């Protein structure tokens, strides 16, 4: 009885992702000795403004995983309505269930203990393709996305170019 359930579960997922990689991202650990901190490289989804970009993200899992969700942060600079200016990702499936103070999200859209690195990344990749401007984390990006799309496109293109230089 050495490792907690969360560590075993994450180790299992890491092994599975190494064996059968999923299209759209690659996953590993930031530090090989810490199973709770992952580094993921998201490939900008084709046919979106982010196409061609390589976005590095960190996932930080709590010890109570899978009962509680991880936190996700883009390390590479990115301009998107649902990612705040510090890189923190704001999507409903990473929010804990419970009383929703603001009434924005249904319980079914929030965190569930069946989510894995793979299902989280699939949601984030689909969020890149399809921003949700109802609850923006980056209000300026959301406003631009709605009102001055060409400026929004320009900023995203700049991030994509920058991400290619960093890789």
């Amino acid at each position, binding site marked *: 009885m050495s490792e907690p*359930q969360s560590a*075993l*579960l994450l180790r*299992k*997922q890491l092994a599975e992702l190494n064996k059968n990689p999923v299209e759209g991202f690659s996953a590993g650990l930031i530090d090989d000795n810490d199973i709770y901190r992952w580094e993921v490289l998201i490939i900008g989804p084709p046919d979106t403004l982010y196409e061609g970009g390589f976005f590095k993200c960190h996932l930080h899992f709590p010890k109570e995983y*899978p*009962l*509680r969700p991880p936190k996700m942060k883009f390390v590479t600079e990115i301009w998107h309505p649902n990612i705040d200016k510090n890189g923190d990702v704001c999507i409903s499936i990473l929010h*804990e*269930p*419970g*009383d929703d103070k603001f009434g924005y999200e249904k*319980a*079914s859209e929030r965190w*569930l*203990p*069946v989510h*894995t690195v793979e299902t989280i990344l699939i949601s984030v990749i689909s969020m890149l393709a399809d921003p949700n401007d109802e609850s923006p984390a980056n209000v300026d990006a959301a406003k631009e996305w709605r009102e001055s799309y060409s400026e929004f496109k320009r900023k995203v293109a700049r991030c994509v170019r920058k991400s290619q230089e960093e890789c």
Partner: protein
Amino acid sequence: MGNCFKRATTDDLSLLRGSDSIRETFSNQLGSSPYQEALTVQSISPVYNPSPSVTSLVTQLTEEEQVKIAKRIGLIQHLPTGTYDGSKKARECVICMAEFIVGDAVRYLPCMHTYHMRCIDDWLMRSLTCPSCMEPVDAALLTSYETN
């Protein structure tokens, strides 16, 4: 739908004490073992989540939170349990991603999804929804009462 209510029901007030499965989960419960040393009881006080992101020792809970948790434990107790015998369709507990082994304690939700008792009870204490189909467990349980 079949019911296997094996346990006698208890009244609301005694639920925090009377929950077998939750007691197993948290290994230590108020007055659960007369032989336990008082010191151990104090140092491994059970931990609850009055809301999903808040973790409190049982001694730190407000009265309102205690009632809420007691009701929740009572509700979970009404969900049928069993032992995995290898005959069911479900092969894996999707919470811990481990295969069921014959003899594992499992719990059946009203939507017929099956999990390790340990895994699902911890989750239900935070949110009363089935992790697979997101059906609200409390509403489904009430419906199953009405139809029986």
